[in-house]
């Protein structure tokens, strides 16, 4: 018998030998069981019934009284419900265990990260009193796959839609905009001291000369984007 699936058959009793039983289930549905139609494999009673059927094919089937049939149906419904309940409990247990595992992993990750501070990597601090992450220094060199983000206030969808409207009017596909690089290069070309279009951000400003290594490393003090303009 399939416990999770109980087929509902609603048919008027035509042959006189069929007994239709109406069993009120625990919830709201009404189950109409035709004893003859149920496949009772693996069940004691069904075994008995089968045996009895096998024993005498010519004889009329054994008559079950109303009491036993009703009890049988009730028992079956009860066991179905119990199995469903057990499965639910099992799933719940599984979920709880998974949650615990994640919590444990989180703690071990934190412990792993708080081992030291690298002198040449700056540390990001999340100023958050309400959490376990009180005043923790997280060295960047150890942060490979962890990303720390602050939960921002959700903007209402209307405000977002309004901003999208503004953005599409200013920067949408029909806005005919160019880049700041282009603007600056035109200024260079048309200015009083005509210069090359490309050279408006001095990348070599602030060249560091490192004494120990004795070599020149070019790092500029600012991070502007720069694309040479052609044509």
């Amino acid at each position, binding site marked *: 018998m399939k416990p999770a699936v109980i087929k509902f058959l609603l048919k008027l009793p035509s042959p006189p030998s069929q007994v239709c039983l109406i069993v009120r289930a625990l919830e709201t549905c009404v189950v109409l069981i035709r004893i003859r139609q149920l496949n009772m494999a693996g069940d004691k009673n069904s075994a008995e019934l089968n045996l009895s059927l096998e024993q005498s094919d010519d004889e009329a089937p054994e008559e079950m009284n109303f009491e036993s049939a009703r009890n049988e149906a009730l028992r079956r419904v009860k066991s179905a419900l119990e199995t469903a309940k057990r499965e639910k409990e099992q799933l719940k247990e599984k979920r709880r265990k998974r949650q615990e595992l994640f919590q444990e992993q989180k703690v071990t990750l934190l412990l792993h990260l708080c081992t030291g501070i690298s002198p040449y990597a700056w*540390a990001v601090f999340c100023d958050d*009193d309400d959490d376990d992450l009180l*005043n923790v220094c997280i060295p960047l060199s150890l942060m490979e796959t962890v990303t720390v983000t602050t939960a921002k206030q959700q903007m209402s969808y209307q405000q977002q839609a309004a901003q999208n409207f503004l953005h599409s009017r200013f920067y949408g596909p029909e806005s005919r905009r160019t880049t700041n690089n282009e603007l600056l290069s035109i200024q260079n070309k048309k200015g009083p001291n005509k210069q090359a279009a490309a050279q408006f951000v001095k990348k070599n400003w*602030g060249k560091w000369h490192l004494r120990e290594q004795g070599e020149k490393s070019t790092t500029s003090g*600012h991070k502007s984007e720069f694309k040479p303009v052609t044509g």
Partner: protein
Amino acid sequence: MGEFKVHRVRFFDYMPSGIRALAFNRGTERLAVARDQGSVELFNFPDNYCQEKVIPGRDGRSVEALCWVGSRLFSVGLDGLITEYDLDNLRPKYTVEAYGGPVWSISCNLEGNLLAVGCEDGTVKIFEVLDDRIQFQRNLDRQKGRIISVSWHPSGTKIAAGMMDMIRIFDAETGHAIHRLLVERGVGTAKNREVVVWSLAYLSDNTIISADSAGKVQIWDGLTGTLIRSHYITKWDVLALSVAHDESSLIAGTSEGTVVQFQFLSSGEQQDKEWIRTRTFKNHTHDVRALVLTDIAVVSGGMDTQLVVRPLLDKVEKNTAESALRKIVFPFKSLVSCAKKAGLLLFQFPDHLEVWRLGESEGYGKPGECLLIKRKPEKLIHLKRKGEDHICSSALSPCGSWLAYSTTSSVRLYRLQHSGNNISISKVSKLPKFLCSAHQLCFSPDSTKLFASSTQSSVIVISLGQSECKYVHTLATKSGSRQPVHLLAPSEDGKWLATANTDCEVHVYNLNKLKLHCTVPVYGSCPTAIAIHPMTSNLVIVHADKQVFEFSLGQKEYTEWSRKLQKQGLHPHWLERDTPISHIFFNPKNSNHIIMHDVYMLCVIDQSLPFPDPKTRLYNQMSLRGLPEAERVRHSHAFKICKSFQDVLSVISLEDQSLVIVERPLLDIMSQLPAPVLQKKFAT
């Protein structure tokens, strides 16, 4: 003069925010400027366009429009709120939900008792302005489509509302729509896109002026609901309009960065007056989103973040300082703090703070040379702020062990521990509860006290200790001023604290006795920098109108030098500079030197030398260098100005007598602005 080793710092990635809205108060002559990030700034126009106050923004707060009602300031934004600001305590006073979705515009009637707001849901809502709040009165007839702009007729009987593809005129009393003016869409591909009426103006002769996204300024007859004239002024959007108070001229701002002026003139003797396009100003590189036409100037602001004041030459005297073009680029308030003994810099951003250690150089060189660097500057700490309010002030103690910052809702204090090359930071949890916000923060030179500027022009003193930080005292003025204290200057010996507020008052407190020592006589201009000389204990004050004063704390009167300077008067070129002095400091090697700077120059005032003659050159350093020694002495004067450094945000002197100059080249800012419109220029 003096020789200084200079740390030139360009790693402060300061990005100003674009200007979203402007509103001018004719009565108090204050300009309110709203930025994209949600902050609101107040400029005092008569006092040399001094940036008086800054109300910090907040994550999620958006400001789309500003409106003055008397001396009260209101704003609306896409968050659906109407906000009134407390201009004494520099924070929003309260917010009112409009319940119409995002709010696009706000306009006040002539009497100043009703506000009309245009909402996303198609309603124009009327609010009554009461003494301490605003109250919803009613809705006008709801329309299909968002209301982008609103304008009251001066009589208060009609309201014009700019929407998508049309303008509606409402009867303000009944709330019904009287006229519908259809606005033509653009040509070509723009025909498929709705045209947005970005701005409107309703004049007293029932003319309506509209500015739309198809690049036109249209003149309508409000009585008949018909179009009089269309002016095509740009291929892009016309984003802003402003009409003069006497309704004789108006200006329109475009996405190209141009501002076009129209004047109500008659083209001939017998002709009627009509709106005729006159001047075009091109002072911006990016979209102009906000405009104000005052009696004498065109004030514009937009996505290139610069506030431009262009005096109209037919209203002011030509070739004077008054007629010069002004571009206000950098904030007046200092965003850089320095731990002078530890060689650390603190940079303030709206959402985080950065602590950097300065690099080290070696060797010596001649003036103008670059020295070799043996250690690069490095970023030590990146501290994200807590909560959604933007950071309004911050400070680093001279020893580098304490860091404090404030938002409008909280003040936070941190302890920095240095161990060799490593640095760690820990929060000080217990602070006095009433210290909830500070407009300005400052540590004492010996790092034992924190001064926080609080309400009612008072300053809270907190003592810092290893175990706990205790409240010591609140230094209050007797003047009853409610304006915030924006400058704090403790003396090196820890005895005095000088404060200045936006009511132009300068007070000096005795920190040993914890009471007011003296008040400097009020001078009509706002102080922009104050400092106490470490040796003479003279207080040096520089005002927004460029005047320099020296006040003796011992004698409680102006010094002899100061009186002489006032008698002679400052050099005209000094007075013509258009950026305020933001820092004053002194030279430990020479007690006659007072060093100060503004955005474009560094000046060493030598009190032992004579004052410059108004007829001679002020900027004479270059010419002096060319003269022989003997000649130099004859031509030298007290104001030695160096212009080698440009776009200077801050100049600080360290304990080892080197200078730190934090520059922010405008080119770097410009390369990170939003995209400008594509303008094809001939031969490029």
